[in-house]
């Protein structure tokens, strides 16, 4: 399913992104936050909501939230307040979640996204606040029962609330990817969507193009992959349009996306929604941050993706597209810069890192950090292109072998005898053999069928197992054929 083309309807989307902060311990207790431990082994009395226990704020979580705020140009609140969001659920041990409500730590900011056609768009960020995550309810292997795992309870989250500025699923995905890149740059979130470290709720509505009021929105909960977000929004938009066009009305409700069926379905209507009875948490003092503190955090800010991409364009002469790809993660950018420095050819390096190597990474489904070919090894390969030892085409073959074996380029070139043939005599010899074997084609070519030139290039390459230097081959072939 795709965006409703040239429709009279306009889609309006706002996202609430939940990013787990990469602190060592929980936001209000000293329990570790590591993922994947046996159920309830990383929950202490505070996380379990025992009688009498009290929360104590983790300063590291505050620092990370401030970093995010600074990265989106937001106002950092000199005073923010933790509030209790009250509701009953078995995976919520205290019967309330400690969050921020009226006074969040991060105020208004914005991010710029780049769409596929290269146009740029600003997406407003309404606010971002600190809160604790809940535990998990487990059903598998527990017939007739529900298990509660409170390992995740109390994991710090930052909830990033956007303005309803997005007008298509693609924009929503672009925005979410942008935030994803940013939090990983800032090293405040590992961005692992499978483990739920980065997930979002999407508020989706439609309205007639040109209307100034927003339509009634539905909230799609807990989307944890870029693909699901796109699909869920597409489904939801179509559902709302169909509903309105058939005389129905969209109701404000919370919906869940079912990735197996590819549809959203109602979880609860607004009337059934909880009244969370927010009020300031009397166990925690207001969080006061002074200018000196904020400046001390600012001093630790890394170069951000947009700044880095702009620098890649100006410093290395890359296209904005390549710069975007190469700055998608801090590790990717660092890898690129290391290779470029070793090779001394930023454009060649960009083509290979953003092209071939990324292809192998994607195929293996791994991040650059887990690349089979290190930056040093890739540089070794590119240097062999630069010094004409091998052609670009052969280099692809070498890279494939490097990826599989882990050997360096020179070893593979030597073992497989892939060194380029650059002696004119050897190339001429190969050309002559080909000409002798193909008298018919030679005659046709000479009688004016120029297209056959490519045939002869191919035959000579075949005869040399692709090792003939392409530029030299072209030149010599032209000479011989005429």
């Amino acid at each position: 399913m795709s965006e409703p083309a040239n429709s009279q309807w306009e889609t309006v989307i706002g996202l609430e992104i939940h990013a787990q902060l990469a602190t060592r311990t929980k936001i209000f207790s000293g329990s570790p936050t590591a993922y994947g431990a046996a159920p309830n082994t990383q929950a202490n009395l505070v996380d379990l909501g025992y009688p009498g226990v009290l929360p104590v704020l983790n300063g590291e979580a505050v620092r990370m939230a401030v970093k995010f705020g600074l990265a989106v140009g937001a106002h950092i609140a000199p005073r923010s307040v933790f509030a209790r969001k009250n509701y009953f659920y078995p995976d919520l041990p205290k019967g309330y979640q400690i969050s921020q409500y009226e006074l969040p730590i991060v105020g208004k900011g914005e991010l710029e996204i780049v769409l596929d056609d290269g146009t740029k768009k600003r997406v407003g960020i309404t606010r971002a606040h600190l809160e604790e995550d809940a535990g998990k309810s487990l059903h598998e292997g527990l017939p007739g029962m529900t298990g509660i795992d409170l390992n995740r309870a109390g994991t710090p989250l930052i909830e990033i609330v956007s303005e309803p500025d997005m007008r298509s699923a693609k924009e929503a995905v672009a925005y979410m990817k942008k935030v994803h890149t940013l939090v990983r740059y800032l090293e405040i979130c590992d961005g692992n969507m499978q483990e739920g470290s980065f997930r979002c709720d999407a508020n989706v509505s439609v309205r007639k193009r040109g209307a100034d009021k927003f339509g009634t929105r539905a909230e799609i909960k807990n989307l944890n992959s870029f693909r699901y977000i796109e699909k869920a929004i597409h489904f939801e938009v179509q559902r709302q349009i169909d509903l309105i066009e058939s005389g129905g009305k969209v109701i404000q409700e919370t919906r869940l996306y079912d990735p197996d069926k590819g549809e959203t379905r109602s979880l609860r209507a607004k009337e059934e929604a909880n009244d969370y009875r927010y009020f300031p948490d009397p166990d925690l003092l207001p969080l006061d941050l002074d200018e000196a503190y904020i400046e001390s955090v600012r001093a630790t800010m890394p170069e951000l993706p947009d700044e880095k991409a702009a620098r890649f364009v100006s410093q290395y002469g890359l296209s904005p597209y390549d710069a975007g790809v190469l700055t998608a993660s801090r590790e990717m950018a660092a890898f690129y810069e290391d290779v470029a420095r070793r090779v001394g050819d930023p454009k060649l390096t960009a083509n290979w890192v953003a092209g071939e190597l990324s292809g192998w990474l994607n195929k293996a489904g791994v991040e650059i950090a887990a690349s089979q070919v290190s930056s040093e090894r890739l540089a070794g390969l590119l240097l062999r292109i630069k010094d004409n030892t091998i052609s670009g085409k052969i280099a692809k073959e070498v890279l494939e072998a490097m990826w599989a074996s882990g050997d360096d380029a020179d070893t593979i070139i030597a073992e497989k005898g892939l060194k380029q043939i650059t002696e004119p005599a050897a190339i001429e010899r190969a050309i002559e053999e080909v000409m002798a074997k193909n008298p018919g084609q030679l005659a046709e070519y000479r009688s004016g069928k120029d297209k056959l030139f490519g045939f002869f290039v191919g035959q000579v390459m075949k005869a040399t197992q692709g090792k003939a230097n392409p530029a030299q081959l072209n030149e010599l072939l032209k000479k011989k054929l005429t």
Partner: protein
Amino acid sequence: MSLHGKTLTELAVGLKAREFSSVELAQVFLKRIADHQAALNAFVSVTQEQALAAARMADAALAAGRAGPLTGLPLAHKDIFCTEGVRTTCGSRMLDNFVSPYDATVVAKLKAAGTVMLGKTNMDEFAMGSSNETSYFGPVRNPWDLKVVPGGSSGGSAAATAARLVPASTGTDTGGSIRQPAALTGITGLKPTYGRVSRYGMIAFASSLDQAGVLTASAEDAALLLGVMAGFDPRDSTSVDEPVPDYRAALNQPLKGLRIGLLKEFFEQGLEAETEKRIREALAVYEKLGATLREVSLPNLPLSVPVYYVVAPAECSSNLARFDGVRYGYRCESPRDLMDLYQRSRGEGFGAEVKRRIMTGTYVLSAGYYDAYYIKAQQVRQLIAADFERAFKEVDVLMGPTAPTPAFPIGAKTSDPITMYLNDIYTIGANLAGLPAISVPCGFVGELPVGLQIVGPHFSEAKVLNVAHGLQRETDWHRRIPKAYA
């Protein structure tokens, strides 16, 4: 003098001098608890074995010269404090089966100081009550007259201390829960400044008001205990990092020139005539000591009760949400589904007063009512705090009655919650403003004791204790023990 007739301070001296051992002391008081538990119902749990073990260790420390000022002294903890390995019920069926896996900071500090816990005292359920009649474990009776209440919510601690079943006990005070029972049982009850003593491990009722304190025979005893209990706790963000003075060393300061403010509003609002006479007599003692009296008006103070009954229930409705039958505590029989588990566990586990406050609190926090109730109450709370601050620019301490009447008969006010709530009319102000306050005995109306309340500025416990001690040097009300327990 009998051992049980001595104050905690005197017992400390006797222990140091090896006149008696900690084990002997524990045995004396454990015997008294056993003899009088049936009549007073002051205890929920008696921890005889642990007590004797702790007493033996204390004796070893005393023998080895490793003893601190509290080593070997017996006491009881209000059953609101979590005690490791010991049932901690908070006076509720909800926690009837709850054995705490950890010690509250107050308990841990007193344990580390070598005190010997004899048991856990009865209390109003979740500290919600002014008469100790809301306890799941039945009402506590006042040792001065078994037909009347001991006050609440620290009624078990008050009755046990007044009858000298223990020389001292801990309590908590959210709206008067230490001072009012101390007044009604003729003992000394100190509520420190909010943040002076850690709340960690104290089962929360209303977090912004709750404060741990002590119920003792004298101000001197209170000073002795507070010195150990007070101080910043990294586990409680609302505890204050303020140095702890030597409270005992600050006693015996002359009271000449002390400026005492009389809370005008307290003498106007429903104060029983004989009770007022006892208060005035105590004030005369202070005048004799060179203090000056002047009337002080805190115009917003009469709003204390309505403000309190918005703020405290609001916080309690949230604090008590964790008691859901899922992880610990009471769970109903064979729940059909999650909703049934919640509804019946909480419906059966909580008593009527707790439910009333949870409902009140849920209501005032609800969308559409929050601004009119909760926000408004917080605003008035600020005004009340400002009234006190203004008053303390003119006077050193404020004085008035602790409770409007002496102890009332069991059952007299249970059918009318508002009348019951008005019992705390004089004590709530100090909680709303976070101020230290003490109640000291100042005479009797008939057979029943009357308490004088002394309120000071933030962190002025040393001054408040000194002022209270001044009265106790001149009078012996605090040495009176009900005849049946003498």
